[in-house]
């Protein structure tokens, strides 16, 4: 590790701390119906959309109605995306003449983009038309992100609700999220990315003849417009197979910084939005602090492990210390322009949030380094987490922590003056346990069955890690991968003669959908239940939820739930590898 490396990490996080209150309070204005500066430009478009989709944005919805709208919106998106991806030979903007992927890989891909996951068995540049990338995937990058934010906002409204059971109007929340938050930042961000070297073209792939006479081809496409929302919406699906490691997606240290800032900005800002909307900014900062502690722990371990290097490197006689003009460390699967620190930082940022983007190869991380993304996922994606989903899962943990804390000191558990009773605790507990349950059972099935093992690339414990990570990532709606694990065999670019591995594709699809929508329903149900409760005044007996004691309690609950459920699985993969120099 170097001082220079740590400086990058510290400056990055300082930017996040600065953005959080600004973007957070802006979003609070958007969701409480206050006037914002963009209303002059966006207002007419907003009203036009309400008219054309035939909704009355003022109509309050209870949790069931809100959930029904959300599910129907997702179902419509699923069907449209499946239709788009399966008709590639008819597309405009298809200069390379690609055909469609087989049904099973398409099924997985569609479910993956609907659930804000962006798990990718395919490589974009050999598989998808520009039209699929733009009108298919980019749209869901916006829509799935908006859905996550809506659920978080609905939960906050439930917590602060003083009268009745209304959680707001789903359609209004979706439209406002897109028009006032996601789209403006994306337009500016995309143009900044292009100005730094990210490409944006609809032209043919480039054919060139190099100085020695060797011929080659370079895939291009409308990358910047997708790159920005893939990060901002914590989606993570790369335009290219190698994602943000590809120089056309992420050409410089500066774009790398910008993309990391985009990833963290909304999840971090939502803690401040929460603080604003519940009327106490300290509440928001408390959540931010708990997230920060876990983020710092992750990035420290990952950076240290990668700087140390791997047993395979050492056995091959490679020296991995920092020497003059070379980064040292484990550079397998890392880009020279990012080196060790920026790769470790990006990978931590992407797995803390539910962003599947990577700027280096996870399958080639050191044993201990690879344990960090797994641990990040094991928390249920609450270290800032996905847009919206990070906050609402964190608030489920808060309910649990309040309950446990209340039991420990013998007080009635309360959150911001609302009594937490059996119903809320049941909803929170089940909501939290769905993801670990799906991930672990799926891994067990995939390891036990031959149909699952054909997807594995590396032998030994790394093969287990690949499998575990595949189902952990899909269940957590993260989307990053130990990419040796495959569900798609493609002999040539353009999908001729390709076929999917149905077992891996469909088991993954189930995890994606179940572990996304079931927790959402439990969260909305909890929100509905909280919305109807009376607020009791703060007294001497109230357990505070905004002081260091509570932050420690909250982290403890998260680590205990994560560690207890996942520790045996972590032992079998990364921990075995980091304890031995043995090669498999």
């Amino acid at each position: 590790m170097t001082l220079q490396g740590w400086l990058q990490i510290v400056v990055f996080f300082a930017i996040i701390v600065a953005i959080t209150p600004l973007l957070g309070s802006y979003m609070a204005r958007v969701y409480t119906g206050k006037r914002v500066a963009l209303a002059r430009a966006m207002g007419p478009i907003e009203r036009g959309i309400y008219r054309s989709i035939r909704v009355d944005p003022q109509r309050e919805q209870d949790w069931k109605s809100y959930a029904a709208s959300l599910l129907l919106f997702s179902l419509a998106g699923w069907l449209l995306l499946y239709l788009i991806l399966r008709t590639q030979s008819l597309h405009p903007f298809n200069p390379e003449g690609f055909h469609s992927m087989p049904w099973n890989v398409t099924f997985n891909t569609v479910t993956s983009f609907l659930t804000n996951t962006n798990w990718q068995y395919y490589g974009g540049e050999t598989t998808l038309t520009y039209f699929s990338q733009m009108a298919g995937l980019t749209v869901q990058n916006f829509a799935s992100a908006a859905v996550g934010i809506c659920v978080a906002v609905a939960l906050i409204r439930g917590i602060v609700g003083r009268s009745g059971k209304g959680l707001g109007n789903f359609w209004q929340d979706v439209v406002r999220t897109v028009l006032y938050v996601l789209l403006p930042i994306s337009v500016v961000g995309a143009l900044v990315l292009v100005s730094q070297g990210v490409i944006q073209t609809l032209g043919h792939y480039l054919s060139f003849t190099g100085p020695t006479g060797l011929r080659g081809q370079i895939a291009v496409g409308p990358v910047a417009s997708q790159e920005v929302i893939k990060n901002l919406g914590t989606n993570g699906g790369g335009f290219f197979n190698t994602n943000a490691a590809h120089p056309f997606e992420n050409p410089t240290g500066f774009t790398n910084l910008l993309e990391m800032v985009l990833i963290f900005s909304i999840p971090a800002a939502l803690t401040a939005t929460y603080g604003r909307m519940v009327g106490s900014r300290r509440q928001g900062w408390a959540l931010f602090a708990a997230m920060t502690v876990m983020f710092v722990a992750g990035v420290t371990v990952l950076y240290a492990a990668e700087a140390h290097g791997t047993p395979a490197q050492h056995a091959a006689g490679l020296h991995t210390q920092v020497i003059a003009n070379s980064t040292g460390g484990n550079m397998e699967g890392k880009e020279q322009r990012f080196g060790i620190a920026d790769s470790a930082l990006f990978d931590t940022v992407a797995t803390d949030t539910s962003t599947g983007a990577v700027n280096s190869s996870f399958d080639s991380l050191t044993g201990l380094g690879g344990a960090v993304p797994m641990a990040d996922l094991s928390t249920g994606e609450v270290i800032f987490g996905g847009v919206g989903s990070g906050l609402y899962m964190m608030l489920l943990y808060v309910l649990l922590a309040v309950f446990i804390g209340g039991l420990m000191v013998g007080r009635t558990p309360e959150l911001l003056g609302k009594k937490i009773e059996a119903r809320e605790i049941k909803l929170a507990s089940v909501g939290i346990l769905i993801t670990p349950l799906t991930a672990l059972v799926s891994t067990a099935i995939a390891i036990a069955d031959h149909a699952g093992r054909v997807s594995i690339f590396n032998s030994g414990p790394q093969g287990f890690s690949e499998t575990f990570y595949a189902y952990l990532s899909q269940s957590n709606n993260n989307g990053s991968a130990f990419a040796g694990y495959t569900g798609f065999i493609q002999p040539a670019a353009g999908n001729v003669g390709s076929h999917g591995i149905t077992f891996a594709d469909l088991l993954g699809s189930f995890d994606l959908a179940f572990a996304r929508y079931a927790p959402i329903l439990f969260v909305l149900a909890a929100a509905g239940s909280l919305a109807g409760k009376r607020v009791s005044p703060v007294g001497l007996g109230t357990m505070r939820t905004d002081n260091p004691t509570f932050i420690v309690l909250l982290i403890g609950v998260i680590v205990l739930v994560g560690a207890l459920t996942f520790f045996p699985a972590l032992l079998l993969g990364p921990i075995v590898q980091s304890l031995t120099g043995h090669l498999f």
Partner: protein
Amino acid sequence: MQIRQNALTAVLAMIVMTVLLGIAYPLAITGISQVAFPGNANGQQVKVNGRLVGSKIIGEQFADVVTGKNGKAKLDKNGNPVTTPDPRYFQTRPSATTPPDNAAATTFSNLGPNNLTTEQEIAANIKAYLALEKPYDPGLTAAQVPVDAADSSASGVDPDVSVANARIQAHRIAAVRHVTLRTVDRLIASYTTGRSLGIFGEPGVNVLELNLALNRITGSR
């Protein structure tokens, strides 16, 4: 009734979003980018005498096709021509794509940290590096090989190498092209990109630009 109304709204909403976010937004960004930043938007293409030789930010192979006894190009088991590094040029990092540095189908190596195949791959890369460089830099040992020269890049098309890697290759370039080592080292320095804003990322030497500069100075033959 309410469900039916909701379903209609859902379908309409998806269509509106597809038009706005899937067509209008990316096309608008494409239009603005093509006007405001045409060089970047089209991939920083590098041309020599009007002929496209690559992209500034995409790594490519500087190698020659090996010809078999019959005078035709030798093919590997995938049907791609077998190549050997061209000693007149700086070499990019090891790449896991097929063929190497294939920017039409990028991929990670996905080689695990504790795997025998990883060790074999890295050992082979070290051996190849020494075979190419040691004749011109006799003191060079495996222990001095920079990590970026033995480990595969992430994208498979990494345009940069470390400065340490370039300085080792400079011995070969100077000998083969009959220029002084100082000249080559000066060129390396002028094609080294520092950290962004002085803080972010790592310095790297752009291999394509460096090689083209060499050609301008000493000719490509």
